């Protein structure tokens, strides 16, 4: 199997994204805006206190810039399959002599690369010069952060993949995707850092797929986890990737037989 077709797809989505320059400028602004709104809210909540339960404002700031930054990078296209089923273009997609799932990953990776360069980096630079961001705990932790972030992307991608597969039956799955995204936003710590969740809930969340998307990488970056804990957390990420992928794959196999091509 050659990788070239998939690289070509990754490149294509990168070029597609570059086609609208104004949209890209606005995209940078909206990512920064989102970050600063949350930052302002938490600054107001902190008031004059330096820390809450040992969590300092700079840690919260770092959490937001990293988790929102990662969120901006990852953003898998939840409508990749549903939109193609909805408008019938799934027909031409199935005519390509390549793996549809492989292509889905390739496009998401191309997209992530674009977002890394044109969303995350500009916002990180702006944040560095305005509010300041904590440095990583150590170079080793930075490397483990990257590893865990990639695994987090894997978890996020497989969740999206599995949800999208239901479109074979349901065609329009906007509400399902919205529910999924709300769950991820709330339970992953990208809106409310999981430090501030009730202790009992955190114990459960630690083993859920959601928290491993953003919160695990952030904790590693800040040096809050021991090496053993990091290995355990990355193991959990990997386990979720496998479980959710297999689930999605069953739907994928069954769904193809159910396929309906809309619109002539």
């Amino acid at each position, binding site marked *: 199997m050659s990788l070239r077709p998939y690289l070509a*797809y990754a490149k*294509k989505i990168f070029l597609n994204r570059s086609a609208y320059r104004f949209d890209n400028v606005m995209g940078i602004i909206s990512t920064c805006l989102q970050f600063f709104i949350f930052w302002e809210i938490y600054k107001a909540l902190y008031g004059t206190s330096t820390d809450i339960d040992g969590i300092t404002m700079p840690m919260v700031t770092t959490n937001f810039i990293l988790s929102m930054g990662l969120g901006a990078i990852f953003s898998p296209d939840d409508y990749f399959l549903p939109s193609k089923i909805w408008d019938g273009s799934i027909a031409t997609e*199935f*005519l390509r002599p390549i793996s549809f799932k492989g292509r889905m990953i390739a496009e998401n990776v191309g997209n992530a690369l674009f977002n890394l360069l044109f969303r995350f980096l500009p916002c990180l630079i702006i944040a560095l010069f305005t509010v300041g961001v904590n440095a990583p705990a150590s170079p080793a932790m930075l490397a483990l952060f990257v590893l865990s972030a990639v695994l987090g992307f894997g978890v996020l991608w497989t969740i999206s993949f599995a949800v999208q597969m239901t479109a074979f039956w349901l065609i329009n799955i906007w509400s399902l995707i919205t529910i999924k995204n709300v769950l991820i936003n709330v339970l992953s710590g990208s809106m409310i850092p999981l430090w501030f969740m009730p202790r009992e809930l955190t114990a459960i969340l630690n083993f859920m797929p959601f928290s491993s998307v953003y919160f695990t990488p952030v904790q590693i970056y800040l040096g809050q986890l021991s090496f053993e804990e990091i290995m355990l957390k990355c193991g959990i990420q990997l386990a979720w990737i496998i479980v959710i992928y297999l689930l999605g794959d069953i739907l994928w196999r069954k769904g193809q037989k159910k396929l309906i091509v809309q*619109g002539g």
Partner: protein
Amino acid sequence: MSFIEVKNVSKTFKVSRRRAGAIGAAANFFVPKFEKKEAVKNISFNIEKGEAVGFIGPNGAGKSTTVKMLSGILHPNSGEIKVGGYIPYKQRKAYVGKIGVVFGQKSQLQWDLPVIDSFELLKAIYSVPDDVYRKNLERFTEMLDMSGFIGQPVRQLSLGQRMRADIVAALLHSPEIVFFDEPTIGVDVVGKETIRAFIRELNRQDGVTMIFTTHDMRDIEKTCRRLIIINEGEKIYDGALSALREMYGTTRRLEVAFSEKVDLPGFENVTVENLENNKKRFTFENNKVQINELMNRILGEYNVRDINISEPDIETIIQKIYTKKEAEI
């Protein structure tokens, strides 16, 4: 063994039946109604390598569904399909590299990118060798006169330009079989002619096997010798285009302009209509009425200014077949 074998293939869709209006929609929410629609019913045919087959039928007859099953997109509910040794819907990835498909209603090009970028992408997807790609691209762009817009984004192309680009896109990897699903839809007369000439050349010169669905019978006349007609999911004709004409196109129409007002006796098996200016129209079946006898009588007994005989065009014949089918049900 034929190149393309289709045996007793059926495809059923479950469609939801909507009641009209707001109240109907509410009722549907609580008690959805589904019914089975048989898009394709027990169809069989064989196609040999190098053949060009026209595939026609009224809207909703099951043409596109059949093409989609042949190209590995849809799974049939029952029956067997084999194309060049592959089972399309089971060996999709390996199979689709050998075929090309043009959907007139669905573009395969990248909306935001210049045409040439879409071609480059396809080259990578199909792993087309550089020399083959260059050769095909040069030849096709020249034949379809595309050099003027190959650098423009697809969203800025006219429909005719887009269609030509789409045709080239389906052929860059030199497929052995090409399915054209309404490739001339919405294209003007000149554009249609260019596309037909191109398709004909592809079949005659390169020996590409093809199936061509369309609503424009002239497309078929110019490109295919064989014709398959389906209606309501069933195959109702399979044979040479010329044979169709002999079978159904027996009606002849004779229009005679007389020099003066005439009173004609009745002729057996001929309907006579009076037109203005002493013109009369005789309609008859050429297997029931001897045409030379009829004309001898007219020309021998009356003064004739002008005479004109016509056979029905293929459109009329097809129309006759479609409506006849409906009348039987």
